[in-house]
Structure formats: C-alpha cells, structure tokens
C-alpha cells in the first residue's frame, strides 16, 4: 500500500478486493466477507439520482454505506449512524429516510435521490440549494445535505409551507451549529415566501 493512498480510497479498494493486510481496516473487512449467505442476490440494480447503478451489496449493508463507499456519493453524510441526527437523509420515492438506517436491498425498484441528484443537467442548483446559499443557512455545513433533502421532500408535497410546517418537516435533522432558523429562512425563500 502506498502512503499516498487516502483513507477513503483505501476503504473502497478493501471492499472491492475483499482483502487487506492492515488490521486498521478490520471491521470493513469483516463485513466485506464473501461467504455465501441465504436469501437475496448480492448483485443488484439500483436507481440512484435517475441512473441505474449495478452494485454488489452485502445483505446487511446500509444505503449510507453503499452510497458513500461503493458509489462515491459522499454528499450523504454519516453523523451518528443510529437514526439520531438526520445527516444521512435521502429520499426514497420522494419520502425522506435515514440512509444509515435503511437496508440497501430494501430500495430495489425504488427511486433514491441524494443531494448530488438535485441540480439540473446544466448545473443550475435546485431552488432549495440556491435559497440555502442566499440565506447563508449552513454554518459548518455538515448537516446541510440532510436539511436540503428534507426541505426538498417537503416542498414536493407542500409547495408553500408555513414556517411551522417547515419546522416540523425539518425536525428530524439535527444541526450541531444551531442554524435552524437560517434553514427555515431558506425554506421560506425557496418556496417564494421571502424575497
């Protein structure tokens, strides 16, 4: 292993090759074993951000893991990995879910959208993304992709939410920096209620 290899690339290569000599990669290795298991086929087609992706998925693998470490979609963050923070929020068939608490095998045949899938083909940002920039919503930015996904899902079903409805819709997204009101300003701007 070359010293230049980054941690992320190392993890990635471990998962693909299923073999690494470093003990530091122990738990990734343990879960990347290819021992035969019953039930589901490991090779699956997933619809992610409108594209079909073929991936080898372990039975017990979470969507956050697949997105970040197999598909390189690191916009979906892992904060707590226990359903307690919301930084991993993605939409599945337009409904918000914690990717850390979703089995990848359960999204077969469904439409998964991550923060990477929001901007238009020409690069124009989604209204929520642009409004969050205009309102300086993020502070450190770690929770931002999750906040964006919750706001996007809200506006799909409720294009002109009240501030309180927005607060409810974003209540499953923790912000360690406490930028909640700035995110709510962003939602109000994205829905055309703040100029």
């Amino acid at each position, binding site marked *: 292993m070359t010293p230049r290899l980054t941690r992320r690339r190392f993890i990635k290569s471990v998962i693909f090759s299923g073999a690494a000599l470093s003990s530091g990669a122990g738990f*990734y290795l343990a*879960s990347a074993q290819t021992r035969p298991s019953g039930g589901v086929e490991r090779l699956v087609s997933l619809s992610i951000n409108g594209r079909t992706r073929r991936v080898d998925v372990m039975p017990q693998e979470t969507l956050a893991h697949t997105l970040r470490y197999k598909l390189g979609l690191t916009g979906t963050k892992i904060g707590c*990995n*226990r359903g307690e923070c*919301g930084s991993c929020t993605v939409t599945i068939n337009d409904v918000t879910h914690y990717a850390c608490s979703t089995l990848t095998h359960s999204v077969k045949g469904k439409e998964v959208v991550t923060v990477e899938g929001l901007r238009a083909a020409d690069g124009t940002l989604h209204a929520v993304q642009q409004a969050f920039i205009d309102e300086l919503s993020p502070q450190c930015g770690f929770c931002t992709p999750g906040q964006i996904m919750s706001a996007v899902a809200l506006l799909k079903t409720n294009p002109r939410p009240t501030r309180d409805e927005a607060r409810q819709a974003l209540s499953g997204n923790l912000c360690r920096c406490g930028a909640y009101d700035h995110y709510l300003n962003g939602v109000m701007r994205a829905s055309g209620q703040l100029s």
Partner: protein
Amino acid sequence: MPAFDNMPDMELYQPVQIDDALALAARLAERGWLVGGGQDTYGWIKDRNKRPEALIDLNGIESLRGVRETENGIEIGALTTLTEVATNPIITQRYALLSKAASVVASPQIRNAGTLAGNLAQDVRCWYYRRGLDCYRAGGNLCYADTPEAQNREHAIFNASRCVAVTPSDTAPALVALEAQMVITSTSGQRVVAAEDFFVGPDVNIESTTVLRDGEILTAVRIPAKWANAEFYYEKVADRNVWDFALVSIAGAMRIEGGNIVESSLVCGAVQCTPRRLTSVERAIQGRPRNEATATMVAGMASQGARPLNQNAFKMPLMDNLVTKLLTA
C-alpha cells in the same frame, strides 16, 4: 463496549407472500429476526448486542399494509408505517387518539420507515441493557438500573420484578385505551389477543415485552367501533420533542352523555413495563362531568401505590398532572 458502523454478515430474506414469511419465521425460529422499518433493529445489531443470523424483511408483503374498514371497526395492517397511521383519514377522523400517538414517535424520517408492528414489538430502552450488559433482561442475574448509583430517571415506578425498564412505545397506550386486538399469525394458525394482554411485564417474561413467540408474526391490529369518535386526550412528556422517549405519556378515551362521563379508558405509558390502565381513576370519574371538580376529586389517585426508584419520583406528580390535564382540557 465498542460501537460499530457496519452490521456483521447475516442472511437476508425478502418474502413477498405472507405464507413464505411465516414459513421462514418458523424455520429460522430464534436464529431469525423480523424487520419492519428496522429502526429499532439496526442499532442492536450494529452494537453487536443482539446477533440474529438472518433478517426477514417483511416490507415486500403488500397485504400487510394499509387501513381497511371491517364490520366492527377498522383493521390496520401491521406493516403500515407510523406516518400512514398518523395521517390516514379514517384514523384521524375516528381514532384521533392513535394518529396523535403515532405522530409524536421519534422523528419524521423514523415515522416514514417505522411500522406499527415494530413500534409495538420494540424492545425496552434501558441504556444498561442496550449497551450489552448482562442484566436480568439479557439473561444475567442483576439489574444495573436498580442500584444506589444507577441512572434510573426514566425507569419504572410500578410493577417492577427484577427488571425496572418501561414500555417505550408511544402507540401502545393509545391502542390499549382503544381496546385494540392484535392479530398474531404463524404456520399453525392465527390467534387474536387483546392489546392489554399483548404486552407482558418481567414477572411474566423478563426477556420479551410482548406475548409474541418465535415463528409468530403480528399481521394486523383491529380497533373496535366502540371508541370511534369518542372524546380523546393524548399527551407525551419527554425531555425534547424529537427522537425522545416518553417520561410519562397518557392516552384517554371517554364517552360523555348528558354532561357526564359514562365510560372511560385511561392508560399511561412509560411508568411500568406495560401500558398501565388507570382503573381506579376510571371508576372514580364514572358518572361525573369532565371538569375541574372531578379532577380535584381524583387528584393523586393515578400515582397511588407507585414505588419510585432513586431518580424517578417526579413521575408520580407528572402522572397525576396529566390526569388533571386530561379531565380539564
């Protein structure tokens, strides 16, 4: 006690027919683990504190979802998500007690994934147990939450038997108050259990909070017409509004005729291992109006007989105050 990011290698089955799920549950028995939304499941497995060898993901079984009208009330498929339970028009119109309870579970994302069955069958939230200590509930011979130094602010004030953990489910008190029936299916047939008997305390079974046995699947919850459109009151008190379990909750259904309560069904969550029916209060308020005077008359009755631990005596006035609020709302 390390915490891991990934779950260990397991088998995963995704049946789409209920019969296949039942056959798998029977064959795998204690090696298997049913998964609804998985929101109570994955933490256990990531922490390596429960080690099932196979997951049976029930989400592909369409027949287990949705709300149906029946001759005597409604039937909710066990795999219906909490978001659906909270927003379904039949439930919000007739059984608002249940939709309110479902709407305060955890967070929006957890309600989008979490199922009614999973919410009812979820395990207790005692942190000693959750961190993998070998306490009574885990098959050991001591309770870490019931020692002089223990952190037991959230634990039981009634009916402890070695274990002092409380029922964590927000929908359970509402379903006991509505006198719901649990439909439990296995390869050998079906049994229907009253909600009140579905939940069991540590005196009956210290390792499970319900009567569910290996191989059985909760397939539906029936709510009789009896309490449809009754007067309801639900309140959950927790340290924060999201991601937090009740310190005490109350679910009440009341029938009022000629200005007086003719019948009521009042249940507290998070005060013992099972939802606690407030039978003495129900008897005392019968035939009286739902008002301040009745509330004063039954003051202190709900918490009578409580045996608080070192840090949770506050749950007694909290229970009593919730009864007052229910009667004066």
